[in-house]
């Protein structure tokens, strides 16, 4: 018998527990909510304990079936992975609490809002996210991606109106095509290297041309799922159409998971020499995403759409890492990961706050939410704080990320990326202001449909404040990230 708290147990448990929770939630509609709450607490506790273990004793590896790579599959939790797990857990708990109230009908005649399906779908997504964060095997990543995509698509369609179903359909089809591109890359890698383990691919002496082809295919496939411009078209309607807790998961975490895989492929699986030609292209696409996504966000009339387009822009920021990694690996790596973590928290907070506004006001059109600041101060405060994080304003995690990315760009003489980063943060401030402004206007005669209960206000505020905590208490996570910065030596 293993010690129940040993990292060797915690690591697989962080995937298995939400999976078991999902199975129970599928089996029993009545116990689904309670199961989800218990599962969320357990999973979060496991994530935190695992984080503590990694901080104390370094990275942990678990060989499934005790075979070890390349025969079997390994799970690996390093500093980045545990940070992702812990942030996911924080968002997870907040979303779970939020969802216990969000789906409750306000009016008598409101129909079934699908909460009993929300629970298993959400727990499956959580399991898939955790599995991706600790994955070290290419085909395992493929299965995880599908385990992530199917419930994510269902989440989009959960509210059931035509726009949402259409968005979900588009999301699913593009996503399948992306998965297949990824899988084609896997086939090429397996044939050329005789292994599926990320770390082993690098040492396999694989043909460089085949490696580049495989990497291109996989990156393209993942770019669809990460919604990198020009493959972003599915995202805004999908993320805006999902019920708020679903949007929070999708925008906060699901797109990030695809990006994490891209990053892992480029930095761990393939030699650094492959980075150079593709890196600038990815950077350019990222820059276009930053600008284009922000400009489109500025043109939206609905809060949820503004936030959704903002995700397109923020994903662009992440892809700026590639050209920066070559010249300034330290700050580029830490800055991007930090940006990712704080954006995940902030974006989830924004969608949760927007959902609470929507439920309370009956609309999330910018014209209709005038005066929301006075009517829903807590929700609005959450929105404001999280919004400032997006704009990279201090004190927030987004500011730290921006500082590090600027450092990476300017210390390597690539000032043009610094310009993109700066303009992007200005545009982010502009679209955040679009919403904030409406909230400061004198309230019109639109009455609240109901006063949101604490389950709808506290989670958003908690996540927003956590993103501020990341901005003040940045040294420990940054040290953890710094220790895992990639080694790009050929």
């Amino acid at each position, binding site marked *: 018998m293993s010690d129940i708290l040993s990292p060797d147990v915690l690591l697989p448990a962080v995937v298995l527990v939400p999976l078991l929770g999902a199975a129970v939630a599928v089996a029993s509609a009545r116990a689904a909510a309670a199961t989800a709450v218990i599962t969320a607490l357990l999973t979060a506790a496991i994530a935190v304990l695992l984080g503590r273990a990694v901080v104390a004793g370094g990275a942990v590896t678990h060989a499934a079936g005790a075979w070890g790579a390349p025969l079997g599959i390994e799970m690996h939790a390093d500093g980045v992975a545990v940070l992702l797990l812990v942030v996911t857990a924080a968002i997870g708990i907040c979303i779970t609490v939020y969802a216990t109230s969000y789906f409750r009908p306000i009016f008598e005649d409101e129909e079934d809002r699908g909460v009993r399906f929300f629970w298993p779908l959400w727990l499956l997504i959580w399991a898939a996210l955790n599995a991706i964060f600790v994955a070290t095997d290419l085909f395992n990543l493929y299965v995880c991606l599908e385990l992530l995509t199917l419930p994510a698509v269902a989440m989009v369609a959960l509210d*059931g109106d035509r726009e949402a*179903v259409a968005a979900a359909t588009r999301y699913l089809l593009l996503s399948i095509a992306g998965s297949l591109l990824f899988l084609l890359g896997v086939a090429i890698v397996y044939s050329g290297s005789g292994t599926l383990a990320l770390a082993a691919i690098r040492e396999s002496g694989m043909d460089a041309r085949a490696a580049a082809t495989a990497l291109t295919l996989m990156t393209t496939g993942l770019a669809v799922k990460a919604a990198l411009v020009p493959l972003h078209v599915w995202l805004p309607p999908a993320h805006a159409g999902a019920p708020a807790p679903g949007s929070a998961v999708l925008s906060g975490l699901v797109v990030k998971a695809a990006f994490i895989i891209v990053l892992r492929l480029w930095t761990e699986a393939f030699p650094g020499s492959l980075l150079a030609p593709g890196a600038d292209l990815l950077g350019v696409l990222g820059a276009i995403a930053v600008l284009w996504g922000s400009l489109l966000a500025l043109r939206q009339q609905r809060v949820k759409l503004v936030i959704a387009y903002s995700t397109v822009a923020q994903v662009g920021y992440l892809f700026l890492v590639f050209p920066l990694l070559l010249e300034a690996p330290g700050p580029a790596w830490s800055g991007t990961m930090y940006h990712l973590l704080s954006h995940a928290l902030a974006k989830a907070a924004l969608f949760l706050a927007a959902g609470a506004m929507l439920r309370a006001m009956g609309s999330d059109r910018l014209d209709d939410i005038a005066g929301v600041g006075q009517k829903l101060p807590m929700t609005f405060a959450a929105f404001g704080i999280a919004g400032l994080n997006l704009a990279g304003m201090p004190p927030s995690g987004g500011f730290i990320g921006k500082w590090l990315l600027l450092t990476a760009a300017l210390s390597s003489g690539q000032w043009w990326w610094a310009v993109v980063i700066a303009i992007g943060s200005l545009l982010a401030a502009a679209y955040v202001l679009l919403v904030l402004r409406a909230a400061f206007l004198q309230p019109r005669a639109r009455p609240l449909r109901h006063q949101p209960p604490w389950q709808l206000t506290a989670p958003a505020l908690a996540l927003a404040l956590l993103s501020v905590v990341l901005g003040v208490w940045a040294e420990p996570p940054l040290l953890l990230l710094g220790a895992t910065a990639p080694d790009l030596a050929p």
Partner: protein
Amino acid sequence: MAFDVALCVLVAGLALRLLTTRDLFEAVILFVSFGLALALVWVRIGAVDVALAEVALGAGVTGALLVNARRRLEQKAPEWLEAAHYRPAAAVLPALCGAFAGVAGLVALTAPRAVQPLAPRILERVPDAAATNPVTAVLLDFRAYDTLLEIGVLVAGITAVWALERGRPAVPPAATAEDEPVLAELVRWIVPLTVMTAIYLTWLGAYEPGGAFQAGALLAGAGVLMLASGFLRPYAPHSPVLRTVVAAGLFVFAAAALATVFAEGALLRYPAAGGYVWVLAIEAVLTVSIAAILAEFFVDVPSAPQQASGEQR
């Protein structure tokens, strides 16, 4: 050799035809044929497990799903089936995409194979695994973690489908044995045979080609037949029994994984003695769950909401 080339030409031709035709019915029929022809390819390659799965799932279940979807579209949105709906997009992008894939594939084709392939290393260790059929050994031992997540994908799929059509009437109208006398007679013969075969396939999986997925597909087919002929009344959508059966596979598999983590120190590392029993037990539960999920995919293609709400009130 010549046979292989001819087979490939046939498969390629089928694919080309079914992707370019304007007739959805033709496309669906061709898709099933395509799947069967592909199964022949798998046999030629020597991948009998895959051939079985292709017939049962790729051609069988997917084909049935397509037929079903087409029928439902015919009922509620016939305009979807009209040729007028055929709007080819500009040809440039598809050509580019095809070319991109082609170039990538050719690079892969001409690239050298791995210096140190994995297959011999796996085959060498199969005797230590919990099944003697190498494919089953990979599926349920070496890479059992993948298979566990894959069951998760199936459960996710059916939950998603359920969530989509939650406006469906509580119990869909069932056919009765009297409606379809010929079918009913057929079912009396086929179903027991199918069930026997499924059990055999599950059991066989440990030694020979076969396993839970193929068996589950067969069982699902039997179930669908019984539903269609009225031998089996469909369960209320997502009724507790159905939900439990669907979830059982994932639950048992994940619980086994957690148990082995505690007891054996590694995820799905089976006890030295009796690993075979574990595998068989897991496979048995999986077979039933998979059958239930696949059958539900077939039954649950959702009806239009107007119709649904009309029946509700």
